[in-house]
């Protein structure tokens, strides 16, 4: 059920299977989450260019040029920061190049801000971790701006090969 005035960020449904819920997350613990913001220009053209280039003739952009072209729009970053301040969250860092804003707050404040519930789980191997019970919700004015929020789920993401 979507909270009023909110939309779910596509693709943020937690991956399953997950495990058995074993309890709530302490509301006062402080967490950092990374908010990924849309690029200021669509990346679809970029992929077309990368794939169409003749091998060895691929145009290369400097990091600065890439950031200016495909980084986040400063207005979008400002929107996310304003949203954060309005929900009692602090902005740890904000990167135009990486299109990300790191927000810090209590589990309670972060949960309220992003319309989700955090729980503790135990997986099939007996390890415990924290995750959201559903997708990330953002206010409609941030729909499309926010592409993901990472950090609610702290289960080990990868194994070394």
């Amino acid at each position, binding site marked *: 059920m979507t909270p009023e005035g909110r939309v779910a*960020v*596509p*693709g*943020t*449904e*937690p*991956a*399953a*299977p997950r495990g*058995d819920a*074993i309890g709530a997350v302490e509301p006062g613990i402080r967490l*950092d*989450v*990374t908010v*990924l913001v849309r*690029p200021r220009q669509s*990346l679809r053209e*970029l*992929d077309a*260019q*990368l*794939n169409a*280039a*003749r*091998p*060895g*003739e*691929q*145009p*290369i*952009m*400097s*990091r*600065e*040029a*890439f*950031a200016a072209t*495909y980084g986040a729009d400063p207005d979008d970053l400002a929107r996310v920061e304003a949203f954060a301040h309005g929900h009692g969250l602090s902005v740890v860092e904000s*990167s135009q*190049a*990486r299109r*990300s804003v790191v927000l810090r707050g209590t589990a309670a404040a972060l949960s309220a801000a992003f319309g989700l519930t955090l729980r503790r789980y*135990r*997986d*099939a*191997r*007996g390890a415990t971790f924290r995750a959201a019970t559903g997708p*990330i919700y953002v206010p409609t004015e941030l729909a499309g701006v926010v*592409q*993901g929020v*990472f*950090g609610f*789920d*702290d289960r*080990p*993401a*990868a*194994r*070394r*090969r």
Partner: protein
Amino acid sequence: MAHANLVPVPGTEKHPVALAESLGDVHPEERIEVTVRVRARVDTQLAARVSDLASQPVHAREHLSREAFAAQFGADPADLARVAAFAQQHGLAVVDSSSARRSVVLSGPVAAMRTAFGVDLKLFAHPGGGTFRGREGAVYVPPELADVVVGVFGLDDRPAAGPHMRRLADLDGIQSLVAAPRASFTPSQIGALYGFPTNATGQGECVAIIELGGGFRTSDLRTYFQQLGVRMPKVVTISVDHGRNQPTNPSSADGEVMLDIEVVGAVAPGATLAVYFAPNTDQGFIDAISMAVHDTTNRPSVISISWGSPEVVWTQASVMAMDQAFQAAAAMGVTVYCAAGDNGANDFPPGPGAQPGNHADFPASSPHVLGCGGTNITVANNAITREVVWNDPGGGATGGGLSALFPVPAWQQSVVQGGKRGVPDVAGDASPLSGYVVRVDGQQSVIGGTSAVAPLWAGLTALLNQQLGKPLGFAAPAFYALPPASGAFVDITEGNNNGFNAAVGWDACTGLGRPDGARLLAALSGTPSHAASAG
């Protein structure tokens, strides 16, 4: 150990860990937790149902909700109750009980577990460092539970059950493997065997290495490179999301970190190595990659990633975030190498949580990176006499397969059938039986795994970038366009990864093949150049 009135649970046999040293019995009062896996309520109907589903077009399929699945195919509550009763009889507590996951988690002292399951639990020193609790032979249950219990996990907690990086000493003691011929090589020797350019050092290049755990000790690196007779490379560390360079002991992720640094460093001693430490979460992984890609201080032109997970465990948002970061790398002339996995065509390590079937690894399956598969080499008189797909029964096999997430990219279409992105793209030596000599936490060790192939290729690319005078960048289209006659890749045509077979040309075990460094450089030099260097 007395097994009177008990019967073995099939498929639970454990063998001794090669070279492990016995340290005596486990303390009888130590509390441990085990997961008892229980039979499905109705096995045969599930197989038929899935088979029906598979034969229907996707849009017409009606999937079971998790609740419905648990109700129909989960464990019978009566079976769970039987296990609970058995536990109570033996003084074991039921911590968790799940019909959907068909498992009961029991907690109790080792003494009670020994009696309940008819096992001897002993303490061992692992040859790679650290201690573990081990048993030999099967797990036993009373006859009335013989059909109910299909597995018991957690009595034995040897490290080989987990990580994908393969230390030679980690190999499970399947007798044929213990007796298998083995050899080990320094990364420099592998480079020489693969014809890497000898007049390049990677000077002026920066190689980024992503680490989600572990750490390195500078003293170990100094000793290692000194012994190798190679100039010690410059190593800088970057902390992402409070990640730290935290070395501990040889059986930890330190092995991964040291392997990565030592392989890149030995191959390209003139390059600067930028090691990004992040927590092992999707947030940490995404942020570390992003940091490396957009790093305007270190400006790496190559990124090496030896961490991954089966595609199905990631959220779509995480996949998109990482793939877009790789796409950005491609646009900025940064080449990314990802290890393809060490468990063969099914990237899940065996054990609780594993899903059946073929599963490719991500991020190796991203179309904006080069997936790195593994081989096993036989060497005589300083030359490779045989090279096959890495597949050591019980000892790991190269990942590889067809992506469930990404369609086949244009530049792969001529060689990959099935409409899906094929993994891997390139390959290199990976078997621990022909593994890499490294130094980890004060000890010399032999390590394999596709973990070694990503840094091997990353180091080679630093050499190529130096010699080409411009970054290789988004390499896949270039690699797949090279004519076989160029000899840039040595095709691997023998072996399989328990799902796919090696073949002439591209295959889902070793991709285009392993490199001939000098020929690869020559072939790439022949392509038209353009002015720009990696930002």
